């Protein structure tokens, strides 16, 4: 059907109708739009018959179409208020949780602290890095490997390790880097690459390009003591001129001690800078060793000039902060504590043999699973955000904060998931409404008293006893058959 030429709807009126149609619930949108376009066409024809000029007709058309917003809004409100066309609240529930999860994930990855904490542990696991120390040394921050020993392994240990790097920690008290004694890690540029010190590519390029030593400083130390020094400046460090190249995050996970700065030197200059200081060795286990099962903690012996020495290889993931393990531990604790906060059973459903109930039974469990899964994921990212992104009080404190926040969050979210599930209709999964107190507390011998909830779709009634008795110990669902539907159809 092509409308007559003079009855064409003005673009502004079309735009108003299009805009307002977005408010109409999708199932009714097409018909609603058809009706308004049709009515506008007849209205314009009527105005033409009345002798309205084009300007008047345009003004009236716009006024007419503005009313479409009221109509669309009414339909929208009616959709949410009418029990018959109520949006599936189970879907809304999941959609809300998904939105919350997306928001928390976004924030957790947006803040550098939490992003680093989430990505670092997985990187170390992928890299198969181990920290090598002499056997029998219990303190992990005690240097035990001499540089000469490391050089020998470099030549002969390639079947065990594909890459190795040596670092040591020295105390420096130099005016150029601040008023206090600083803990300086000295390592080769390959070391920074191996453990991924989170240096920017610009810093690493600079380090490779220049032969002179390069200094990178921890973020908080730079902020406190070196705010005026900028990249490219030369500063004095350990008695030599070094190039300040940039800033790295405060915590280098898994490494011994906490360094204020790292002096990255060319591998050939390590002896000059470190002298006879003992240090630490970080290595990447070779593929052959990994295939042989050397993935956990293991050891090896080295014989030199008839002297035998044993060394332990500890995966860096064992020493680095492990948010996932902390979270799993919190989950375990929360599951232990959960029965103390809410009963675990979901209630009695005597009508489970009802065909309708039987058909939709699996939906209840899928919904519960999705709800718990999303809640757990939200708590994980929220705890990471809080512990490493917002507070970020050092690795140990952050782990404790993560443990505490995860435990509290998991306990309450699991409790909520179970309580929410118990208050839903098992057929349509909508929240039960219209709570009504039934019975008297003084007549609990031959009658029951408690709260009765109702499914607004007419699927049944839920009876929740106030006091658990031997014959009414938990909530009970009463299925209503199809003959009740008319009563709930809302006229």
């Amino acid at each position: 059907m092509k409308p007559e030429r003079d009855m064409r709807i003005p673009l502004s009126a079309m735009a108003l109708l299009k805009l307002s149609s977005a408010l109409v619930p999708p199932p009714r949108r097409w018909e609603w739009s058809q009706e308004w376009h049709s009515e506008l066409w007849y209205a314009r024809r009527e105005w033409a018959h009345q002798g309205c000029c084009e300007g008047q007709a345009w003004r009236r058309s716009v006024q007419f179409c503005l009313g479409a917003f009221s109509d669309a809004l009414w339909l929208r409100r009616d959709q949410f208020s009418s029990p018959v066309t109520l949006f599936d609240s189970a879907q809304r529930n999941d959609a809300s949780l998904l939105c919350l999860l997306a928001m928390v994930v976004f924030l957790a990855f947006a803040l550098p602290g939490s992003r680093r904490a989430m990505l670092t542990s997985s990187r170390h696991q992928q890299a198969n890095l181990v920290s090598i120390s002499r056997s029998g040394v219990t303190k992990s921050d005690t240097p035990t490997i001499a540089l000469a020993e490391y050089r020998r392994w470099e030549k002969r240990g390639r079947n065990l390790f594909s890459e190795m790097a040596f670092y040591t920690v020295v105390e420096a008290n130099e005016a150029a880097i601040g008023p206090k004694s600083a803990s300086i890690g000295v390592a080769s540029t390959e070391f920074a690459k191996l453990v991924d010190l989170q240096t920017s590519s610009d810093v690493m390029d600079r380090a490779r390009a220049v032969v002179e030593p390069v200094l990178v400083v921890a973020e908080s130390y730079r902020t406190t003591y070196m705010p005026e020094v900028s990249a490219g400046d030369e500063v004095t460090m350990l008695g030599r001129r070094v190039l300040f190249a940039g800033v790295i995050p405060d915590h280098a996970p898994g490494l011994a001690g906490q360094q204020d700065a790292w002096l990255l030197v060319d591998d050939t200059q390590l002896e000059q800078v470190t002298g006879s200081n003992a240090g630490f060795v970080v290595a990447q286990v070779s593929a052959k060793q990994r295939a042989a099962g050397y993935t956990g903690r293991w050891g090896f012996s080295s014989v030199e000039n008839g002297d035998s020495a044993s060394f332990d290889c500890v995966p860096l993931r064992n020493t680095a902060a492990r948010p996932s393990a902390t979270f799993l531990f919190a989950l375990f604790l929360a599951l232990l504590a959960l029965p103390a906060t809410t009963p675990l059973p979901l209630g009695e459903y005597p009508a489970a043999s009802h065909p309708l109930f039987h058909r939709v039974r699996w939906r209840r469990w899928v919904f519960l699973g999705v709800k718990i899964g999303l809640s757990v994921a939200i708590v994980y990212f929220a705890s990471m955000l809080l512990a490493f992104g917002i507070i970020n009080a050092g690795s140990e404190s952050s782990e404790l904060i993560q443990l505490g926040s995860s435990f509290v969050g998991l306990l309450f979210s699991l409790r909520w998931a179970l309580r929410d599930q118990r208050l839903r209709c098992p057929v349509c999964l909508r929240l039960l409404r219209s709570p009504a107190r039934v019975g008297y507390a003084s007549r609990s011998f031959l009658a029951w008293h408690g709260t009765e909830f109702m499914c607004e779709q007419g699927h049944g009634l839920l009876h929740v006893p106030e006091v658990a008795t031997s014959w009414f110990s938990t909530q009970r669902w009463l299925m209503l058959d199809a003959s009740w539907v008319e009563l709930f159809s809302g006229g």
Partner: protein
Amino acid sequence: MTYVAIYSIACQVAFYIGRIPRMSSETKLSHTAALILQSIHVGYIYGFSVMEVTGLPSGTVYPAMRRLERDGLIQSQWEQQAAADAEKRPPRKYYKLTRSGKTTLEASRKRYPLLNKLAASPEVNA
């Protein structure tokens, strides 16, 4: 006895829901809704013609008609596409009163006697 029990349970359920399933004949309409109902009854069966005869704006008339339709007082129907195509015009949705709507209108006329003044429309047979 069974019927009495069922009736009492039904009343209890209706009370809990806070509404009764269908509009009763004593349903009280607002003056605007009654005016629209009367307009449709006398033959102004399209939304725009109701607007014209009542002087109400589109933002009042159409939502009110949706509400009346939801409450089962009027029902809508699209005219045949072929009939509209033959006259090179878009098909139109028209409304008519249901039995419940007629009963409600009778009650509303007692409440708003001036409703009877609304004249019949030639559109009644459109």
